[in-house]
């Protein structure tokens, strides 16, 4: 069975898809010719997955699913009719041990119509805002799919209506986001206490929100200034001692956001910053970093990219991530062979609580259709005062997937 909450979201999104597809086929295109063209634009990625927790029982001692196996399917479709482009991306996951990981998500089901320099779009999409490697504090439009990735980099689809205008060195866009989706938490990794299926919302508001963004580039600078107002995607987990659970509490937020890069001669400087108001208090958070590509190991590794980023967030306990005064250092290794082997290492150190976290990921192509991915994460040290990181201690895991894409 699919988990009930994510299943309902998926059904709602699938209805949106059906409407879009109905619109597509009602346009009077000749079926057989169209079918051939459409099939050319369909891609499937089918993967077998495995996940192994180093501790047999979760911290809550409620489930015992040290090893699980599963199947993951992603279907993509893209087509263009004159000035209108259609995109869809359907994601489905089944896990043998964790019921919450049995879910479907419509990552994309949208169309964009372009006339001269103006584009309007509607449907479901996955947006990316940001420039950093560790934590993207400005990537605020979509809900995180934390079952796929704890760092929040993988996103669930978000319904939207948008309009954008291009100019020679950038573009400006406005978005209306009609729906809000709450986070679905997996059984593992657990967060110290079971998480309530009941969500709380500030002033009972559950709003996708409004957003605007202007992206500009000139010379060696590229930056964007954005605005967002709506329900914050990342909840505050409030302990309920009487029930011994954590209750997700979603607050209203209003943000001004900045993200940009400067390409210096030998390195790239990056900044993501966000300031705004939540719970009647002002706040600010930022990720400032540097990226340095090195070719000194070129005889063995084609490219090594060194990364150092510092994340701060003055919201402390109500921060969106565990990076509230943290240094992230890491490296990306591109082995440069025909199999496109790539590895990424990331380590974080918390200056306030001395918490340490590390992760290592790797992917390798076996042939034109088959590739493997692996990732291992470990909380090296964490104290109870570092709530977000401490919650993950004892929940470290390794995961593996074998993909067939065609």
């Amino acid at each position, binding site marked *: 069975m699919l988990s009930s909450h994510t299943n309902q979201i998926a059904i709602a999104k699938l209805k949106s898809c059906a409407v879009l597809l109905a619109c597509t086929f009602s346009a009077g295109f000749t079926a057989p010719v169209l079918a051939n063209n459409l099939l050319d634009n369909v891609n499937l990625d089918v993967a077998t997955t495995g996940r192994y927790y180093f501790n047999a029982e979760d911290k809550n001692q409620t489930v015992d699913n040290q090893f699980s196996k599963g199947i993951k399917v992603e279907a993509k479709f893209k087509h263009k009719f004159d000035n209108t482009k259609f995109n869809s991306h359907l994601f489905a996951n089944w896990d043998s041990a964790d019921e919450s990981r049995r879910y479907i998500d419509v990552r994309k089901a949208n169309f964009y119509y372009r006339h001269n320099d103006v584009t309007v779009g509607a449907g479901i999409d996955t947006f990316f805002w940001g420039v950093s490697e560790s934590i993207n504090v400005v990537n605020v439009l979509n809900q995180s799919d934390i079952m796929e990735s704890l760092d929040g980099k993988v996103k669930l689809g978000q319904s939207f209506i948008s309009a954008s205008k291009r100019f020679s060195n950038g573009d400006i866009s406005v978005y209306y986001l009609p729906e809000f989706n709450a986070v679905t938490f997996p059984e593992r990794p657990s967060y110290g206490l079971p998480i309530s299926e009941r969500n709380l919302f500030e002033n009972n508001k559950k709003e996708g929100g409004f957003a605007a963004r202007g992206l500009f580039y000139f010379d060696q600078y*590229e930056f964007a200034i954005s605005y967002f107002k709506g329900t914050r995607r990342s909840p505050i987990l409030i302990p309920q001692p009487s029930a011994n659970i954590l209750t997700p509490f979603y607050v209203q937020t209003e943000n001004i956001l900045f993200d940009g890069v400067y390409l210096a*001669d030998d*390195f790239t400087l990056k900044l993501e910053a966000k300031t705004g108001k939540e719970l009647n208090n002002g706040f600010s958070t930022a990720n400032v970093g540097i990226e340095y590509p090195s070719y000194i190991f070129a005889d063995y590794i084609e490219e090594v990219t060194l990364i150092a980023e510092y994340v701060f967030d003055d919201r402390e306990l109500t921060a969106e991530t565990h990076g509230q005064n943290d240094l992230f250092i890491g490296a990306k290794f591109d082995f440069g062979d*025909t199999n496109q082997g790539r590895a990424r290492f990331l380590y974080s150190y918390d200056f306030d609580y001395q918490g340490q976290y590390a992760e290592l990921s790797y992917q390798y*192509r076996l042939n*034109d259709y088959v590739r493997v991915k692996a990732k291992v994460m470990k909380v090296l040290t964490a104290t109870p005062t570092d709530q977000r990181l401490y919650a993950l201690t004892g929940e470290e895991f390794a995961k593996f997937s074998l993909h067939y894409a065609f």
Partner: protein
Amino acid sequence: MKLTQLSVTLVTLQLTLLSGAAHAAPATKQDSAEKGYNIAVALDTRDAGFKDSSATLSMILKNGQGSQTLRELDIKVLENTEEGDKSLIKFDFPADIKGTSLLTHPLRASTDDQWLFLPAVNRTKRISSRNKSGAFMGSEFSFEDMTNKNIEDYTYNFIATEPCNNATADSATTTCDVIERFPVDKHSGYSKQKMWIEQADKKIYKIEYYDRKNTLLKVFTATDFKLYDNKYWRANKVEMHNVQTNKATALKYRSIQFAQGLTDREFHRSSLGE
């Protein structure tokens, strides 16, 4: 002025404006530089007025032990006489990298603007000049190989005139100018490039790439030339062979079309994710 080099040879090899008799060796170093520059200018101007081109091709990656992997891609080029031709390279196969795109806006006065779109993370990443010597999608072509070059990106030197010695059928009777060019960008992966340019039609038959230690690194060869629209010569097969690792990447063109009405809109940064 633009100098279409490799993507270049990838998309813009063409008809020449010059014809001619074999060049005599220049008398001085200055003469040699001037002659090399003039040949580069003639190469640069051979395609003037092509407006745009679109090509579909296969990229075959050979690892040196005999195994091969395949990529399918499209390359679009938009003529831009002011700053240099814009290019958009988009992968269509394998499925997991479908949509991966490289957009380049050359600039005469500074480093080119270059963006890489990665569909797996829905992210457009600006490429820094230091990254440009890195391998492009695991191939023997680097990011800098995949951009259209301007005349100002190099200094030149004429070396000699000699038989082309190319695998193309008529090459035994053709004559090539051999020139060297030296990258101005200090982040280039090369110390110099040695080019064999056929005199009559300004076809680039061969380029030797020397690494920063001035050792031969890669050899680019172009064969199976075809005349399109009765004006533009294109090589239908090109190969980049890394002589230090014995790896190679071959490009085989399936179709090339000109003047399809492409505009700046298709080459806008915001078009990458669409």
